[in-house]
Every structure is written in C-alpha cells, then in structure tokens.
C-alpha cells in the first residue's frame, strides 16, 4: 500500500534571478514498511526532496500524497497539524528541546497530540528503553552524546505514531559506531514494528543497510533499486 507518493515533483529555487533546478519531475511511491535510502552527490536534491515529502516546503510544480491525501495544497496551519499526526522527523541536528530531558522530549510530541498522561509516560518510557536509553531518561541533550541525542530523536519521531519517519542525514554528525548503532535501532523498529523509514545519507555503510536505494543526480531520479539485505538482519 502506498503511504507516500510524489507526482512529477519539481522545485526551482530563485526562479526570477538565478534559477536552481533542485528537483526535476520526481515521481516515486513508497509503501508501508519500506526502509528506503536516498543517496546522491552533494547538491543532488536529497534534502529538497525530503523537505517536500515532509510538507516543510512547497514544490514549484507536482504534488505529494500522504496516505491518499494531497499535502502540497494544504493550508499551513492544517499542514502543521497533519505533520504532527502523520510524519516523524529526525534532523541532522537541532532535534531536541534543550531545556527538556530525554523523557520530556519524547513526551512533548504526545502532549501536542493531547494524549492521556498515563499513556504518554508509559510510551515514552518504553520508547527510550527501545533505543537503549532507559537509564538516561532524565538527561538533558547537552548531557548526552550526539548518538544518544539522535536516538532520542528517533524515539520522539516514533512516539507520535506517524505513517512514516523522514531522516535527513541522521548519522552525518556521528562517529561510525554511533551511526551503526542508530541504524540498528531504526532497522529493528522497521522489522519488528513495520515502521516506514525514508532517510538520506552519504555513508556507504548506512546505504548498505537499506532495502531500497533511490539515487539522485542533479535533481532527478537516476536509479531506484530494491536489494536483499538479509545478511545485516542478524543485528
């Protein structure tokens, strides 16, 4: 079932001065349960595409559909609410509220969703446990390593029970051990809970873990391949 779809998506920056064609006619479909990596050289349009998929930016033409709903024409306030309930985000940095603890950061998004206190507490506990931070619940972001912070971000993204999670270079600031550790967690959630991930990366070891790799060049889809990655599933 397609939960995410783009139709002839194009984005031109600075159309009036020096036009930059960041996306050219991108049409992709992502199904529930996919573990998809978007790769390509710097400037090829990965970030631009992820921003469109997340409803953070408007395309110049074409459309984005989430779960059968077109988000490109949504009003801003409706879109914010739509993101809250449907899309999880993991950014490269600045993921967390610095004045909140890990537990509060994960709880926060559920508070925004107006869930019950009890559910929020239990789910935040459970998710932090799942990302291996059961003992760092009360740590603030500055007290955690980059890898730990990204794990909190993944837990936070998952907490809202989104249709899918978008992650733009989630491991770019991490050492390779932390990067692999984060990937393991994402992978495990994908396999065990059927959580859909779409992430961009430059890191070959991260790319190796993806079951689908979409390669972009110059704003267009260059290659779109499904692979068998059973050998990494032992983690």
């Amino acid at each position: 079932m397609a939960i995410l779809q783009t139709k002839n998506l194009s984005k031109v920056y600075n159309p009036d001065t020096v036009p930059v064609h960041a996306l050219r006619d991108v049409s992709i479909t992502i199904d529930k349960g996919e573990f998809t990596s978007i790769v390509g050289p710097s400037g090829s349009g990965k970030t631009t595409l992820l921003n469109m998929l997340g409803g953070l930016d408007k395309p110049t033409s074409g459309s984005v559909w989430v779960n059968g709903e077109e988000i490109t024409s949504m009003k801003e306030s409706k879109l914010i609410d739509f993101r809250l309930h449907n899309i999880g985000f993991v950014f490269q940095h600045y993921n967390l509220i610095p004045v909140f603890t890990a537990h509060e950061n994960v709880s926060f998004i559920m508070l925004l969703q107006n869930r019950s206190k009890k559910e929020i507490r239990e789910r935040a506990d459970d998710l932090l446990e799942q990302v291996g931070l059961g003992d760092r619940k009360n740590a603030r972001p500055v007290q955690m390593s980059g890898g730990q912070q990204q794990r909190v971000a993944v837990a936070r993204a998952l907490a809202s029970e989104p249709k899918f999670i978008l992650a733009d270079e989630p491991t770019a600031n991490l050492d390779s051990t932390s990067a692999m550790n984060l990937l393991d967690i994402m992978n495990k959630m994908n396999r065990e809970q059927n959580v859909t991930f779409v992430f961009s990366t430059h890191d070959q070891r991260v790319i190796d873990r993806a079951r689908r790799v979409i390669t972009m060049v110059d704003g267009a889809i260059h290659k779109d391949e499904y692979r068998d990655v059973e050998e990494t599933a032992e983690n």
Partner: protein
Amino acid sequence: MKTLLTIAWRNIWRNPARSGVLLAAIVAGLWAGVVTVGIINGLMQQRIDYMIESEITHAQIHHPEFLAEGYSWLYIPDHDEIISRLENDSRVLSFTSRTITDGMLQSPVKTSGVRIRGIDADKERETTTFHENLIEGEYLDSGMSSAILIGQEMAREHSMEIGNRVVLTFEDVNNELISASFNIVGIFRSASTDYDRTNVFIRSEEFIKLLSHKPVYHEIGMMLVHEDLAGEKVADLNDHFAGIKAQTWRQLSPELSMLVELGGVMVIIITMIIMAALAFGILNTMLMALFERMREIGMLISIGMSKLRVFTTIMFESVILTLTGAAAGFLLAWITIGYLSGSGLNLEMFAEGAAQLGWDHIIYPVLTPGEYVIIIIVVVLITLISSLYPAIKGIRINPLEAAKSS
C-alpha cells in the same frame, strides 16, 4: 498549557545572565519610577495642604471685584447673614473673617506696596496655621495696641526688626487717605518669599476703626470637613447670596491647581519613560533569545507544534520574566514608600533654595491605591504589547530552519 509554561520558564534560565540583567533593570526601573512618582505626589500634596491650611483655606468669600482691585470699599455685603449660615452648616469646620486693603508701607528706609490683612487673632488661629509661621516675636494676641506682623523678607528689605515702627497708608471706605503707625511685634516666614515681602498682618478690630464707622470684612476663609466638599459649598453660597463671590481653593489659587496638573503631567512623563525602557528591554532580550533559537523553533513547527502554541510559549516567557521583575520592583517601591511616608525623606541637602520657592524639605511620599492600580495596569499592558512582537516573529519562523544542514 503546563508544558508550554515549563518550556517558557526553563527558557528564561537558559541564559541566566541575560535574563538576570533584564530582571534587575525592570526591578530597579520600576522601583525608582514608582518611588519618584510617590515623591512628586508627596511634594505636591504637602505644598497644597500647606497653602490651604496656612492661608487659602478650602473656600473663600469676597466681593466679586475685591481680589482684582483690593479697595476697602469692596467689602462683603450681608456679612452677618453669611456668617450665621456658615455657623449652622455641619460641613464647615471653622471660618474667619478678614479685613483687607491694599496700601503702602513706609519705613525709614523706603516705601513699598503691601496688602494689609486685618485678622481676628483667635478665629484665625482656629482656622489656619498662620501663627506657626511666626519665627520671631509675638503673635497679635499679646494685647499690645497697633501691633503689626511683617514677613521676614520685608524686614530684610526694609532693614527692620521687632520694636521698629512703620506707617501704613491706605484709602478708607469713603475714599479718604488714612495713615497710621504700627509697632512691629513679630516676624513671620511662610512658604513663599514673595508672600512674605508683600503681606502684613494687623488686628481687624483696629483696622476696621480706621476704615469705616461700621464693621467691614473683605474675606471669609473657611475650612470644611473635607476638601471635596468645597465645590458644593461654594455653589450653595453663590446661590444664596447676591453680590458676593465664593470660590474654592482651586479657583483662588491658579498656582495650586496648576501644580496639581503639573504633578499629573510629571507622573505621566515618568511613567512613559519607564514604560519605554521596559518595552525596549523586553524587545531586545526576547528578540535576541529568539534569534538564537531560530532552528529550535523551526524544529518545533516542523514536528507539528501549532503556531498558537509557539506564540503562547514565547508570550509566556516574556510575560513571566517581565512581570516577575515588575512585581518585585513594585513590592520594593511599596515598602519604600510605606517606610518614607512615616519617616519622611529629608532633602535638606538639595533644598537650600526650596524654602524660598515655598517647598518643604522633608517629603512624605504618597501613592494612592488608585495610582498603584493604574501603574500595574499600564505595566501589564505594556508587557503584553511589547511581548507581542517577538511572539509574532516567532511564529513566522520557517520550519526549514530546522532542516538546514549547517
């Protein structure tokens, strides 16, 4: 809601130095401003009370043209009927009749224009505090005939002292020029040097004998139970008696009512300065904080925090910060004014010239509950208004800020 408050509260303490500076500035500014307003109020009120109690009284009655002309034949008609009406009015605490005429005072040194005030020593003492102004010699109740009190400034200009004689020349009610000599028995100093240079006091019964074959009075001054009653009492008298003019202290002394207005204007100016500083402080601090947190706020909008919630959080932050400071400053000011209103603020070292201008040097600051409430309302309004701009700026932040890679 509670979560938003928590974020706001913790955000305040993210940069303790910056928040602390703003907080300290607000506390100090509000404290200084409110105390200053209290001092100005106290200064004005004391001046007004002094003028009313020592001379002007709450209301006065004259012949309609007397105050402008000063002639002895412009005396109050129906004096005795007016007096009996005042005696039977429970709103009137006390009153006194004065016989007044403009004339010349001659000393061996020179001649100068004076207003000669004939007073009833006992009734004057019941009605005003003029007798407290005596700095030397005796009051007019010593029994000595042809006694006169002169002001310190006049004594200085004429190089006169107690025991000297002066000659007063004035027109009686029949337009005849009269001269009589008086002995200086006392010297007074009021709050106004000018007043002390141009007014002399003699006994009214002696004055009347020189002016007319029947009692004439030019001024009735009265103290009322409460200052606020002056307006209605004056209206009542003007309705009942033709050929007189009753006036309240405000009408009698444009200087005093201007002072009241001036005090009000100064209070407004001080309040505006403080409020401008307050608004500037909030804007500066909050815009700085916001600028540092562009990405964080972009992230919050990205993950689905509504604009209303972002707005509320930023508002909370500036309002909590400001109102905490304002409350502390206010409390301090309240304590200060409470203390000073008992002990008084001694401005002697700045006030050398003040007495000459007619001001006390010990000030008892006052602030009415109404003024406290107004200042609180203004502070809250200014805080809300100046917090609005950073909050609106906050919700305009592009969610893409969070996605930027460096």
